[in-house]
């Protein structure tokens, strides 16, 4: 999928034109807000918790080199293998090599955004390996051949009839129009895959540097099954997904689930330290931790460093009015919502994504909700300034803003321009509505405000405002 502004526009049109989907997404956001608010209220002092999470994450990212070294050492001490992949290609090739060496025919996967980022599934499928997503949402979008729609809710946009149709196709018979029955069907199918898979691949919600522990939060039990039943477990993580130790893990886990799904904790929180030990009753024979850079370390020490403090709860998308209007696929990236608009151009480059930082009204709802205090609006503004710097000096926006800056420095000229505009307005307003191409995006859905016949400054200078002190 090559991202383009035209593709963005087309996907936006698809979603804004679908009234049912619009209602569905808006209702979802209102539900998510209710859950999140209740979870935060129960916790108490959410702002202090957000401070704590931000402090842990910013500290970790600021000392990422040290914590990475410690984490790698500890994973190895516990008997795990570690591979540091500089690029998506390196990561794919390394994972493919492990899968090939085990002669694996079937791979089960627990939910992982970073494997979607590096395009792992198509690479494995090309080798003739069957890849089965076992998170229910991921399974649904895998069947429909779509990328995830949301960081934590990959099939958020799918409603019951569509899911029923997808599952019925797999079943080879018409399944009942019933949530329980459909879930039971998926469980039956996936259970067989867990038992017969040669390799399990998971993401990593957080890695604990002090002990080399990989932490996974899941609700369906599929994370546990994928990481314990197959003989080989490959855990894939971004280099920034670390916390120093267990005490610092606590606030991050607490807020991750409450912000993400409004839960005190997910049904399962798995902490995996090394492969199966002699005393363990189950677990894989080998554990591989693949740590993916893919553009992240380039952000360290830059104005974008704090983009790496995200904990991938998805709640920025849950609060974003633009996300609910355009949907997750419009971002043309595995990462959607405000954080997607930030990290997609940062990890993949501005080419093809330069419009994304502008897909925000800068309303700040995401900033107010983010449990890690990722300064999303600030990062979007930084990206916008990078985009503006790339625009040609003759771009209409550049010319416009330079002209306006010049007017700002010349109040008399500005006053004259207002007088001229005010005088001309009655005639201009009588022209057909589309008189100025520049304003067509406004007039397409809204009436234009009138330019006042007499500007404020003119009224003030004329004394009708009751002049006092300095004037023009």
């Amino acid at each position, binding site marked *: 999928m090559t991202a383009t502004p035209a593709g963005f*526009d087309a996907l936006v*049109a698809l979603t*804004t034109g679908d009234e049912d989907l619009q209602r569905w997404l808006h209702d979802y956001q209102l539900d998510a807000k209710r859950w999140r608010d209740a979870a935060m209220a129960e916790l108490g002092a959410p702002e202090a918790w957000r401070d704590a999470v931000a402090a842990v994450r910013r500290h970790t990212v600021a000392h990422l080199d040290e914590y990475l070294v410690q984490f790698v050492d500890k994973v190895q001490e516990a008997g795990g293998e570690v591979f540091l992949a500089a690029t998506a290609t390196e990561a794919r090739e390394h994972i493919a090599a492990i899968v090939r060496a085990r002669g694996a025919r079937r791979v089960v996967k627990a939910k992982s955004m970073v494997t979607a980022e590096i395009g792992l599934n198509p690479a494995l499928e090309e080798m003739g390996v069957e890849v089965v997503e076992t998170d229910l949402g991921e399974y649904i979008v895998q069947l429909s051949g779509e990328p995830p729609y949301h960081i934590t809710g990959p099939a958020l946009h799918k409603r019951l009839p569509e899911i029923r149709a997808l599952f019925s196709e797999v079943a080879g018979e018409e399944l009942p129009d019933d949530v329980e029955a459909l879930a039971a069907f998926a469980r039956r199918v996936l259970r067989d895959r867990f038992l017969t898979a040669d390799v399990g691949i998971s993401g990593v919600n957080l890695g604990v540097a002090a002990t080399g522990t990989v932490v996974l939060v899941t609700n369906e039990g599929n994370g546990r099954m994928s990481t314990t039943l197959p003989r080989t477990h490959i855990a894939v993580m971004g280099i920034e997904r670390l916390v120093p130790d267990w005490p610092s893990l606590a606030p991050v886990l607490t807020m991750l689930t409450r912000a993400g799904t409004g839960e005190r904790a997910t049904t399962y929180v798995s902490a995996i330290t090394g492969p199966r030990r002699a005393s363990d009753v189950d677990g894989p024979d080998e554990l591989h931790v693949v740590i993916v850079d893919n553009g992240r370390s380039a952000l360290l020490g830059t104005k974008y460093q704090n983009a790496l403090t995200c904990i991938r709860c998805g709640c920025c998308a849950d609060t974003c*009015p*633009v996300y609910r209007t355009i949907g997750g696929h419009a971002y043309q990236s595995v990462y959607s919502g405000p954080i997607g608009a930030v990290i997609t151009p940062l990890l993949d480059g501005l080419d093809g994504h330069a419009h994304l*930082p*502008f*897909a*925000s*009204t*800068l*309303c*700040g*709802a995401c900033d*107010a909700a983010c449990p890690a205090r990722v300064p999303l609006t600030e990062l979007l*503004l930084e*990206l*916008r*300034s*990078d*985009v*503006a*710097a790339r625009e040609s000096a003759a771009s209409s*926006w*550049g010319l416009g*803003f330079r002209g*306006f*800056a010049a*007017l*700002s*420095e010349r*109040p008399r000229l500005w*006053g004259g321009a*207002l007088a001229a*505009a*005010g005088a001309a307005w009655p005639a201009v307003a009588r022209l057909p509505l589309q008189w100025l191409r*520049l*304003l067509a*995006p*406004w007039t*397409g*859905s*809204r*009436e*234009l*405000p*009138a*330019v*006042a016949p*007499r*500007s*404020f*400054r003119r*009224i*003030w200078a004329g004394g009708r*405002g*009751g002049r*006092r*002190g*300095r004037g023009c």
Partner: protein
Amino acid sequence: MITCLGDALFPRVGLAAVNVLRALGVAVDFPATQVCCGQAAFNSGYRAEARRSAEAYLRAFAASEHVVSISGSCAAMVCHHYPGLFAGSALEADAGALAERTYEFSQFLTDVLNVDRLPARYDARVTLHHSCHTLRMLGVKDQPERLLSMVEGLEYVPLARADECCGFGGTFALKMAPISASLVDDKVDAVLETGAEVLTGLDMSCLMNIGGRLRRRGARMRVKHLAEILAEGWQG
């Protein structure tokens, strides 16, 4: 701080604010070298251009004791972004000082003037759009509601999903028009659901957006800045 939009399109709002402030005993000045705070340029990524506008603003308000803005987002531009915009420059201290003494209109009335009663009467059902920057960047939450509750005869009808953006977003409304149009439609639905006769707010750019859509949809609801309601209803 009349703002460029207020100067060109809504002088009645500036005049209303001046009248209310004077009635409350404030000596009001309009430093005529002010034009624009630079918000649109800044939010579009044109920082050098924003800095030029902002520098002129710093000079214009250098002698003002308090600066009162009829637009929450312009006040937020000064309070929130000026210090960063001038960080490390000779104007850093000036920018910080201006940010310290700049207020949105309702905030100035409640937090600086400590207004707890208003001799105003306005017989209408009124609903309020909070505006994102006023709400989240300036932290102006219940100030406008407190002021509205002091107005006799005014029936305040809260807006559902009041913290949701109206979809204006400055140049966003032009650059991402279909998204903006969809959002303003949602907002207009919520505004009309209140059954109010008047929509008020603290930022004319949001009100211009919602008002423009209301008119296009043929709704007869009046749209007024809070200062207009207070000025029109002022008694004595």
